[in-house]
């Protein structure tokens, strides 16, 4: 399908570093960039590009989660709970992706992103004030209470995830994004956990990173079994992605949550417009 030259390999690794930085610092897999990159630059059919993207997402998620789980940033219990519906979404949507034209869901998704992006943008504008209010500072004996140390605030941040049933429902769509578009699902999971469940943005980002590896895995199993994975592209991309992830994690750990939220809201707006334009091409 593709003869890889040294310059191709170099380009893929550099691109992987860029994706790793974006993905790990924002809790997304970077699939929104990977799929267009392979389709537009290497003329790879979209279904194969999605498969490579999912392999790369497993690597980003695993590399980043290996650090965040130890640091206590990841809410493992919340992640497992939401992964159940996410895995169902991934499996169902991968089946649909292999069979059907996804333009209607593509359009629905692009419209759905705009209000989410706007909400996150307004939340980020509250900036420092909101930052210091994030989480619970008083003692709480709730068994679901989670705590992590935020070095940018210089204190422990505690929180209790809320509205879990609703989050469970929306996580299904995170899985759908994974199987249908190779996006990993962080683009849905971070806002769901942050806005709906009240999880601080850093914990939401880290937990999303932990989860997207599983949703990508659920889809990748099916795509690998059906011969959609191009191993050579995946291996070089993963090298770059892992290097980038290590850099991105440092950004996540030290950066202000509001900076990440603001950046993420702009990214969502961009993706929404891009997906709309793609449909009306």
């Amino acid at each position, binding site marked *: 399908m593709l003869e890889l030259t040294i310059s191709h390999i170099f380009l893929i690794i550099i691109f992987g570093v860029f994706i790793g930085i974006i993905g790990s610092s924002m809790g997304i897999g970077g699939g929104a960039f990977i799929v267009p990159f392979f389709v537009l630059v290497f003329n790879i059919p979209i279904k194969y590009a999605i498969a490579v993207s999912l392999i790369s997402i497993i690597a980003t998620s*695993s590399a980043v989660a290996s650090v965040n789980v*130890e640091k206590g940033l990841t809410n493992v219990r919340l992640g*497992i709970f939401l*992964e159940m519906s996410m895995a169902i979404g991934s499996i169902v949507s991968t089946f649909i992706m292999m069979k059907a034209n996804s333009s209607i869901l593509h359009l629905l998704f692009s419209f759905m992103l705009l209000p989410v992006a706007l909400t996150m943008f307004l939340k980020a504008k509250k900036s420092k004030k909101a930052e210091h209010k994030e989480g619970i500072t008083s003692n709480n004996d709730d068994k679901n209470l989670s705590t992590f140390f935020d070095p940018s605030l210089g204190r422990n941040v505690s929180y209790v995830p809320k509205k879990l049933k609703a989050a469970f429902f929306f996580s299904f769509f995170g899985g759908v994004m994974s199987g249908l578009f190779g996006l990993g699902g962080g683009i849905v999971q971070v806002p769901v956990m942050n806005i709906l469940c009240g999880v601080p943005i850093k914990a939401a980002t880290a937990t999303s990173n932990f989860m997207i590896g599983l949703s990508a895995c659920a889809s990748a199993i099916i795509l690998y079994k059906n011969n959609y994975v191009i191993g050579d592209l995946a291996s070089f991309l993963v090298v770059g992605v892992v290097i980038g992830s290590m850099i991105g994690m440092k950004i996540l750990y030290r950066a202000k949550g509001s900076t990440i939220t603001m950046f993420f809201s702009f990214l969502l707006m961009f993706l929404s417009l891009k997906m709309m334009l793609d449909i009306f091409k």
Partner: protein
Amino acid sequence: MKKFTEKQLYEIISKTLRNGVILFIVISFLSYLFKDPQIHKFILDIAIMILISTPIMRIIILAVGFYKLGDKKYSFYSFVILVLLFLGLFIKK
């Protein structure tokens, strides 16, 4: 005997995830040492299978780990995810 703690469980998870990615990179690089395309593809396939298995391994560890910690609810959730992943194996084009 020392009691198994949540911290220990998370350390095992971290190591599993890290080693899965490292193994993938090492084995996929090894595959490029072979000029025969079939051998290269065979070794690269092993690397990809290891990477895909990494999140599955962490779910198995979490299922067992939470059970050992006495948290049967999350052990069950992990088991449900495992079953879902297994069902995915039967989906065809």
